[in-house]
């Protein structure tokens, strides 16, 4: 039994038993939020971390899935149709995003995705006959997968947890697969990968699609959680926040986006209850992370830990 296995098992046990030791429904709801935002961040991390393609338009995709759910339900269809439509709409939008933005990499990719995200935001905000404009779309009720109602906070938490664990497992498998290795290859050495016969564009495109799938899933969970979708959920700040989750936790790691999601959501929902200027705090945290721990919280902590460990060993003359 390796230490890593014990840590993962302890983490899963803590998450599964969370409704029993979390003080109050409010914190349980915050935990649900952290989980579905973590799925979102994991999805973006596929591109930003493993593919080196920083997207600032992902909230647009997230929003498309959420709006598709809301709009389908409003039109009188059932939950399965709504979820199917949301996934289809999210993936289709991602395909369009990918075809347009994969024309360049680096800053060009950032700018194009940012602009595309703003188009989606503009549509949500202005195309009032479809989206309800600033008033958004209200939902009524949540689906009941396999006949289990998920209206209570703990039932919704468990649903989110199951989806989250599946998503995390999928990302883990993806990253360790030849496809994941090829994606990292296109990030580090695109020309060499081309010379080796890899289709760099196709690898990036399918990475985008996987990222889009996770984003759409989190968008659906979000809209069922809040029962409401408005343009605010897909503006530039929302895109920025999820990117900040990825980068602050540590891009290109599995745990980083989850830690980042927890950090951002806790500051946004818990600390904002005590501190009026929480946006200032969030901004300051990001600047501080870049200066003090440019690689992100998870790899940064690991580095400090190793450093401390080595120093401790030196002090005791290698006895440890």
């Amino acid at each position, binding site marked *: 039994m390796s230490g890593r296995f014990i840590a993962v098992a302890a983490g899963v046990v803590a998450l599964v038993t969370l409704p029993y030791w979390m003080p109050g429904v409010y914190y349980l709801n915050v935990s649900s939020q952290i989980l579905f935002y973590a799925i979102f961040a994991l999805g973006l991390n596929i591109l930003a971390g493993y593919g080196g393609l920083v997207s600032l338009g992902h909230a647009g995709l997230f929003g498309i899935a959420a709006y598709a759910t809301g709009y389908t339900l409003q039109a009188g269809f059932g939950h399965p149709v709504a979820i199917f439509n949301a996934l289809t709409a999210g993936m289709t939008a991602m395909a369009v995003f990918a075809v347009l933005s994969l*024309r360049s990499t680096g*800053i*060009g990719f950032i700018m194009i995705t940012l602009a595309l995200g703003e188009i989606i935001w*503009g*549509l949500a905000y*202005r*195309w009032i006959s479809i989206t309800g404009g600033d008033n958004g779309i209200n939902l009524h009720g949540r689906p009941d997968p396999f006949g289990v109602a998920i209206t209570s906070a703990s039932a919704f938490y468990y649903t989110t947890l199951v989806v989250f664990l599946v998503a995390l497992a999928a990302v883990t498998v993806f990253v360790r697969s030849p496809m994941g290795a090829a994606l990292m290859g296109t990030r580090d050495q695109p020309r060499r990968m081309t010379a080796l016969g890899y289709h760099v564009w196709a690898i990036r495109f399918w990475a985008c699609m996987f990222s889009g799938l996770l984003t759409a899933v989190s968008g659906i969970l979000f809209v069922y959680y809040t029962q409401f979708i408005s343009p605010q959920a897909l503006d*530039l700040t929302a895109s920025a926040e999820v990117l900040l989750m990825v980068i602050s936790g540590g891009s290109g790691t599995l745990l980083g986006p989850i830690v980042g999601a927890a950090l951002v959501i806790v500051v946004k929902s818990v600390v904002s209850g005590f501190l009026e200027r929480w946006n200032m705090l969030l901004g300051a945290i*990001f600047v501080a992370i870049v200066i003090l721990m*440019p690689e992100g919280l998870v790899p940064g902590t690991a580095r400090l830990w190793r450093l401390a460990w080595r120093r401790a060993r030196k002090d005791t003359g290698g006895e440890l």
Partner: protein
Amino acid sequence: MTFWLLLTVNSITFGGLLFLLAAGFSLIFGLMRIPNLTHGSLFMLGAYFGATFVGGYLSVTFNFWVAVLMATVLVAAFGTLIERFLLRQLPGQQMAQVLVTLGISFMVADFCLMVWGGDPVRVDTPGSLTGFIRYGPLVFPHYRLAIIAIAVVAALGLWLLLDRTRLGAMIRAGVDDPDMARVVGIRVSQLFTIVFALGAGLAAFAGIIGAPILSVYPGLDQDMLPLALVVVILGGSGSLLGSFVGSIIIGFIYNFGQALLPELSYFVLFLPMLLVLIVRPQGLFGRFVP
């Protein structure tokens, strides 16, 4: 007919404001390859500072143009600080640059909300320019015409600076090939500071000049940043002419779109950008694909 002419004047006015904003963004992006996501915040900060000076600060009210100058210089100094102490530490690290500039824009937005509150701040048109020009049934406000004039003068000034001076030649060399520019002895890092301060100052200048038309409100930063971005993608990064043409095009599309297709105005706004990306990825006048 009157309607169309007025819309045209408004479009050119807005295009002029956009040019002031986008020219700096484009230069920063072209020279430093930094996506400066604080640019909208600098615009807003300039507008708020200017509004405060005009409205009276410590019971001293300033002349509009003095206020413009002070706000511009203040924000340019702020931009210098950002460049010197933060961006300077992160050469070539795009993700870190994105994170820092976004972090700063969050802080600026929250700072503005803290100091000036959530209500829009109105800035009066400077006294000498409150009138109108009447031409038959047409009425053109002096101030809008003045903005057009200012934008044209600024464009000419920037063009002279970039095309006719030694500093401009160094900046152009840096845009085209930063490594080669270093090799021939140009201190590119010093240029970075100058260009960043210039861009920040221009953004603030646009903010306060535009304040009597747009008014100043929380969220102004996020309204302007995407517009600057579209202009730069459309016109081509690092190109002054590109910024100018792009700004005018976007000014027209923005105003006509809002008047004719209010529901799809944002979509129409971004359409030419998509077309350019597909047909000519480096932008209309750009020299390199970002």
